[in-house]
């Protein structure tokens, strides 16, 4: 019988130390300011700091738009694959896995190249207006496009697992036999059965967008993660305080996902 022998204790204690010390030290760092003693100023300052509200709001808006768009694209496609077009399935699987092969930094290098075409080649065409519009700093839609692509592999995996657990075809046939129309069958029978998978996919996307830094920074926008970085240069205490808070929020989200939707086995990237 497996018992907690000294070796196990050593492993667990080591892991506990390594994973807890940086968190504890961050809190100490923000609270215990040299020369001032214990103070909570760093936390109270956050809200009044320039750009906090607007960057957080921008991140939340981007997240909402990304979740809506990615679900709108993937849910009908994946349900349809189960119902009618199985031959397209390998194609969709490959397409959804492709973003994993392109690191975010390489992806953003490609995007910025495309965005440069706007002023260079298209300035006299109507397309130019589209290029300007997607880069509107108030709501950079180009980020939503990038985030949907980056979220695709995770959303696909989450939804696919959910769809595998229910027999979509039988559900739809049953609903149809009971007199439901096709849209009714999808909205009132299939979707409720996918609730866990949809939640899972949404939370993963939310966490991805809230923490995303690479694409936003290099395209020159300032959502929350970029804002934290920009405060970091001038106000060390403050930036660590914001990091601690953003961690707590993200973790609360992911933990609620673990409780609500069953533990996710989806390994995310770092």
């Amino acid at each position, binding site marked *: *019988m*497996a018992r*907690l022998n000294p070796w196990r204790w050593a*492993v*667990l204690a080591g892991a506990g130390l390594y994973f807890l010390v*940086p968190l504890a*030290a*961050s809190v*100490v*760092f923000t609270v215990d300011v040299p020369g001032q003693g214990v103070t909570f100023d760093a936390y109270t300052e956050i809200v009044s700091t320039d750009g906090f509200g607007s960057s957080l709001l921008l991140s939340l808006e981007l997240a909402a738009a990304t979740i809506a768009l990615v679900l*709108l694209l*993937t849910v*009908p*496609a994946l349900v349809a*694959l189960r119902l*009618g*077009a*199985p031959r397209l399935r390998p*194609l*969709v699987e490959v*397409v*959804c896995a492709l973003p*994993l*092969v*392109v*690191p*975010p*930094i*390489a*992806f*953003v*290098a*490609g995007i*910025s*190249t*495309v965005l440069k075409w706007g002023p260079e080649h298209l300035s006299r065409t109507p397309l130019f207006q589209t290029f300007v519009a997607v880069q509107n700093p108030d709501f950079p839609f180009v980020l939503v*496009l*990038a985030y949907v*692509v980056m979220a695709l592999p995770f959303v696909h995996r989450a939804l696919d697992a959910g769809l595998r657990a229910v027999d979509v075809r039988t559900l739809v046939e049953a609903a149809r036999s009971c007199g439901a129309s096709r849209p009714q069958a999808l909205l009132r029978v299939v979707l409720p059965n996918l609730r866990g998978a949809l939640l899972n996919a949404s939370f993963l996307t939310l966490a991805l967008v809230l*923490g995303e*830094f*690479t694409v936003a*920074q*290099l395209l020159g926008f300032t959502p929350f*993660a970029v804002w934290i970085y920009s405060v*970091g240069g001038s106000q*060390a205490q403050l930036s*660590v305080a914001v*990091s*601690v808070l953003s961690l707590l929020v*993200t973790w609360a989200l*992911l*933990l609620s996902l*673990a409780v609500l939707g069953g*533990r*996710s*086995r989806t*390994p*995310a990237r*770092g």
Partner: protein
Amino acid sequence: MTVALTEAEPAPAAAPRQRRRRATGRLAVLPLLAFTGVAFGIPALAMLNGALTVKDPATGATSYSTANLSASLHGAYLTALIGSVKLSAVSAVLAAALGLPLAQTVVTSRFRALREAVLTAAGVLANFGGVPLAFAFVATLGNSGVLTRRLGLADKGWNLYSFWGLVIVYLYFLIPLMVLTITPALDGLRTQWREAARNNGATAFQYWRHVALPVLLPSLLGGLVLLFGSAFAAYATAAAMVGSAVPLVTLQIADAISGNVLVGQENVALALSLDMVLVAGLVMAVYLPLQRRSARWLA
């Protein structure tokens, strides 16, 4: 066609309905394919095209050549590429070596709650990367970090903004990722195998050497390349922490995109991106077959 046979419907009625179903199926998949074609395909092609074109600074004419690619494999660019590969490999191997005993401890534990807690924490920590992680470590082990000051690490030559500093930080999300990837494989190790080995007189070491490790090997290697890819692609943590103190390919590309580069060298960044894609593609090409292989034992 097999679908039509298994359905308990009269064949003549089923045929047109099925055709209609196929059509709506294609219609529903189309937006997804069109979207990825535009949002993913165009930047990817632009990158490929840019990596392979050279602009003559005098005449402004462009031509296809592999000059950028060979430039990306020389000098500072090569140093950065090697730096990234070295950092990712060292972090991945260490994370695998440390994550395996942790996962094994948790999997064979009698305490269900411990297992649940560790796995949930691993799921959360594996998602923890980027700027907040960098700042947490700066606050802990940076120049004026809490541990650095309390333990006087600076006098002992400690420097977080270095290769090994980055390794320590990367392990923070790589070890949990390893725990998550290897746990299903460890769950697949039957207790009967261990008992059978013991009944035949094998020591614990022999059991691991001849039974457990060979079964785990595909999963271990799969986890290893996954960790490698994850560390290789990481940018935010390094950017927020070390700036350009440690040469990394992601930092080089970022520099070039931000315009901090010699004129005429912009496309080298795209060539570096292409190098990264090739490495990441290689990682996936190794990972997917291994994953399939390990699935055989875990069924």
